[in-house]
């Protein structure tokens, strides 16, 4: 049997593992970790085989659809885009699960943990496999629910419960926009078909949506006096969903707080299963974005701004995991920027963004797992209390340094020597330059190059503060067990060489998702529809542009070494509450005050909620009256049921007589 026929098993196996682990896990050793590990390993093998097969035979896209009801379907689609995502998610999730057997060994409820992570993985895989936007949305929501459960895994801690709620509510804002987008899309398509959808046509399937992009672009809406094409409206609403899920400004506030879950959950969320969903959504619907005027510009600007904005906050955090969290936000900004530059480079953008997504998954999972290893061993994640950890935990230190080199993107331009991050991040920055040349707007490029410097500063600051020098407190600790260090080493290998080995193949493979594949889109004509001018040729940037990202990365390394390694500047003096810039950054631009205290409490809670309460009271009164009345009626009607069978017979006879009369009367009246 061809492996394509097993594609449906990729999400089904982890879902089954969830059920089994949930019910049986308690009775098995290590909380039944073996079940999800075996399931995800099998999913990984299937995904890998499908990907390799697709590489060899690009036309063998897996596409299976079944009618669900009416004009909607359920189905799976594995094209290059989905295939690489599936392989990455299963691979990273598998390593995290193996690592978790060590990390969660002291926890009270490991079976609940493994059941929930299995479901989390299953939902994400289902999301990737979906061949229609509705099924994707259902899995998208499932991912949200699982993240809520896992961030609040230690729900007895109030901070964890709050963080879980915050993550859920914040992403919900994006989800509502996404759903609105789907509704607008559905009604537009329905209109395009004149309400007459032929049999076997499922209008929310991606190929069907893409086939009607020109029709969608022709519909215009008038919003606040502006003529907006419906396709722009829909794509921006979709992007709103992606902003929530992928932690873009201004809905990124949940991501740093999501650190309250176990570190392995952070690794899952940040690397594989959740935040990449937003990037994937934009990549999946890329033909719509490129045909939508202004949408890609918005994507590029939001992405670039998020990259630099989160970077500035990353450099002042003292919590190991928080630095990594802001780093994720910043890198996600890069990915969005990578998609946004599609305005200049067309479908190649999907390739570069996805390439960075995959590389990021490797090194970010690695960073988190290393951080987890440190936390597991020494019991704290405040960097001010650490220092000199490299001596105690050599493997963790080496792998973490490799991950940091990958994150900063160290490599030699023009050759294929370099860490994974070098190939993908530099590609994004170079294309941002091209974007500047083509569209004449240079801000995204400037942001992205400045963010490269910040990236290097925050990550090497973390390395120096944690692993270098002498211990600042007496923390003890030991190297982690093999179940944890082996996944670290595997991920480190990927972070080192994956980028260099695959860069050419990967980009062409994924970039062709929408050409000569399950759909054959004419990207350049779509771009004309969206009013974008694609660059004629790529890769002709000046030497300086090629070298600048590396120079920035090295500069960051030197600066941090001078400050934290040689201590030539007394940071204690600079880092004080009197320094206004530090204060602004440390308080994270007062987002908490703005979002929580002002918008949530003042505007939404006190404004809307109090108005709502008055209305609610009225409803409450009506409902209460109605329920009292019916309960009362129930009580009195019960009296009819006397229990004496003679009465029952009387009721039957009376009923017959009355009915005859009633029918007569009603007939006369009508």
């Amino acid at each position, binding site marked *: 049997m061809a492996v394509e026929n097993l594609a449906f098993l990729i999400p089904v196996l982890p879902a089954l593992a969830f059920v089994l682990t949930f019910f049986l896990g308690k009775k098995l050793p290590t909380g039944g970790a073996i079940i999800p590990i075996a399931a995800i390993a099998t999913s990984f093998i299937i995904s890998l085989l499908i990907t390799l097969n697709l590489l060899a035979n690009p036309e063998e896209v897996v596409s299976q659809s079944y009618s669900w009801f009416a004009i909607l379907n359920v189905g799976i689609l594995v094209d290059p885009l989905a295939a690489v995502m599936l392989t990455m998610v299963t691979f990273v999730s598998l390593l995290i699960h193996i690592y978790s057997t060590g990390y969660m060994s002291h926890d009270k409820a490991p079976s609940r943990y493994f059941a929930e992570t299995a479901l989390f993985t299953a939902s994400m895989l289902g999301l990737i496999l979906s061949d229609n936007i509705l099924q994707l949305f259902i899995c998208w929501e499932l991912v949200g629910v699982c993240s809520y459960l896992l961030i609040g895994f230690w729900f007895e801690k109030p901070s964890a419960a709050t963080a879980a709620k915050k993550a859920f509510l914040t992403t919900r804002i994006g989800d509502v926009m996404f759903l609105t987008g789907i509704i607008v899309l559905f009604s537009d398509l329905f209109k395009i078909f004149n309400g007459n959808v032929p049999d076997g046509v499922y209008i929310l399937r991606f190929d069907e949506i893409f086939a009607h992009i020109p029709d969608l672009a022709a519909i215009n809406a008038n919003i606040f006096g502006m003529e907006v094409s419906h396709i722009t409206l829909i794509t921006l609403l979709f992007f709103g969903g992606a902003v929530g899920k992928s932690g873009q400004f201004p809905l990124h506030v949940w991501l740093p707080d999501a650190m309250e879950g176990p570190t392995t959950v952070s690794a899952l969320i940040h690397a594989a299963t959740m935040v990449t969903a937003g990037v994937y959504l934009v990549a999946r619907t890329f033909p719509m974005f490129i045909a939508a005027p202004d949408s890609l510009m918005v994507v590029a600007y939001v992405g670039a701004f998020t990259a630099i904005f989160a970077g500035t906050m990353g450099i002042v955090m003292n919590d190991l995991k928080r630095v990594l969290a802001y780093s994720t936000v910043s890198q996600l900004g890069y990915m969005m920027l990578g998609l946004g530059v599609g305005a200049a480079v067309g479908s190649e953008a999907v390739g570069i963004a996805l390439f960075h997504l995959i590389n990021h998954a490797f090194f970010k999972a690695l960073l988190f797992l290393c951080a987890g290893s440190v936390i597991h061993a020494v019991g704290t994640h405040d960097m001010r209390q650490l220092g000199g950890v490299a001596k105690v935990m050599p493997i963790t230190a080496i792998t973490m340094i490799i991950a940091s080199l990958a994150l900063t993107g160290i490599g030699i331009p023009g050759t294929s020597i370099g860490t994974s991050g070098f190939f993908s991040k530099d590609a994004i920055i170079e294309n941002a330059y091209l974007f500047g040349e083509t569209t004449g707007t240079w801000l995204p490029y400037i942001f992205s190059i400045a963010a490269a410097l910040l990236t290097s500063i925050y990550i090497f600051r973390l390395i120096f503060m944690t692993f270098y020098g002498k211990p600042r407190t007496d923390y003890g600790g030991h190297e982690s067990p093999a179940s944890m260090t082996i996944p670290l080493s595997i991920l480190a290998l990927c972070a080192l060489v994956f980028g260099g080995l695959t860069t050419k193949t990967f980009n062409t493979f994924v970039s062709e998702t929408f050409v000569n594949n399950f759909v054959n889109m004419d990207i350049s004509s779509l771009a004309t529809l969206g009013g974008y001018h694609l660059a004629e040729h790529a890769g002709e940037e000046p030497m300086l542009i090629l070298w600048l990202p590396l120079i920035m990365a090295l500069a960051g390394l030197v600066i941090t070494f001078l400050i934290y390694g040689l201590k030539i500047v007394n940071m204690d003096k600079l880092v004080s509450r009197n320094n206004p810039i530090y204060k602004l950054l440390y308080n994270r631009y007062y987002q908490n005050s703005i979002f929580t205290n002002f918008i949530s409490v003042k505007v939404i809670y006190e404004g809307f909620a109090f108005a709502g309460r008055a209305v609610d009271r009225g409803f409450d009164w009506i409902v209460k009256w109605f329920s009292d009345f019916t309960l009362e009626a129930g009580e009195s009607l019960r009296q009819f049921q006397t229990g004496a069978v003679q009465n*029952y*017979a009387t009721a*039957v006879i009376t*009923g017959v007589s009355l*009915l*005859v009369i009633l*029918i007569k009367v009603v007939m006369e009246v009508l």
Partner: protein
Amino acid sequence: MNLMLVAPELTIAVTGLAVLLIGLFLPTDSKKILGYLASLGVLIALALTVSSLGTEALLFYNTVSIDALSQFFKIVFLVVALLFTIAGIKYTEGNSNTEEFFTLGLFATIGMMFVASANDLMVLFVAFELASLATYALAGFEKKNIKSLEAAMKYFIIGSLSAALMLLGISYVYGATGTTSIPEIAANSATLASSPIGIVAVVLLLAGFGFKIALVPFHMWAPDTYQGSPSVVSALLAAGSKKMGIVAALKVFVVALIALKADWQIAFAILAVITMTYGNVVALKQTSVKRMLAYSSLAQAGYITMAFVVLTPIALGGGIFYALSHGFMKAGAFIATAAVTYMVLSENKDSADPDHIENFRGLGKRMPITALCMTIFVFALAGIPLTAGYMSKFVLFSSTIQSGFVWLAVIAILNSAISLGYYAKIVKYMYFLPTDSEKVSEPFPYTIAMIIAAVGVLALGFWSEPFVHWAMEAASVLLTGGM
């Protein structure tokens, strides 16, 4: 004549007789095998019916008709019978009269199946009585239990009265049209429609069927009987025998007496509104779960009879689909109650009312599978989305609105809201109220029967389209049959 066409009925009859005879020679300890035998027989009959889907034929001098409608309802009855026999394996454990329990259940099933395929009022009546007599005896199966005997007695007395009324109604129809064949009555009903006897005949027949469907005011036996009978028998009564009343009413009113449509539409409108409201309101105050389910099943019958008022193909299809869904939901709920009753009785033999809602306290911890299944059933009965109950209500209510009966739909929807009050109460007891009692093991046959029903409820809710289509096909038999 091709005997294969009645093969399902024959299989059930042979199984019933075999169970009875084998049972005579078995010691009580080994009578468990009878339950498996009966389940196997039902399963074979079910397979035979499914394999002959799509055939149409008239048998026995045109008195029995095999068509989409009869096949649909036969499958409903066989599914309920399957749940009944599987659950019965546990219920009859150690009982010396096991063979009677299964034989009576199987004979009742044959009766229901022949009602579904009857094409003549005489066949219909005889089959109706076959099912009724078997269930009278089943209701009183616990011979030492005074409540069970009382239940059977009341059921029998009111049942006999209703049968007499029904027969009287049939005789009026025969007198006016000169035939008992359903299609011929439809052809000759002009005289009946013009005479004042017409209304009387309609109401008398309605009383006969309304007794089985448990429409107010012909319902008064139902709460007592459902409560007093063994829960497994209640499942058969509420899920199976009630549907027999519905299919009989469909055949007699929608096909045979379509000319008197104006009369019975009004009657059904009045009864539907009274029945659903009365059932839901009284259910709110019940403390016995079986009694609560009995009133809930009144309410559900009220919803289903809306199909007679609206009388469009979609509404009839919706009503028929509702009958199928209700079979799964209600049978499942009663079997879940049977499991709880069994648990209570095995802890305390003399428990006065083992189905009291207090016994559901903390069930989520004590019997997790039973509690989960029960939750699915009551949510389905309440009409929560993704369950069979939701899809049924959706099809039925939306067709009601489409045909302009907005007032009826509004009453039905308000009723659904009220019903959540008592359904949610069961869930509250199971999951939110604490208990000191221990976790107990869940009887295996009950669990299997509940899981089958729960899967059915979810499958019908999630993948409803083919089933709704199938129900529409069955409904189309009604609307073309009389032409």
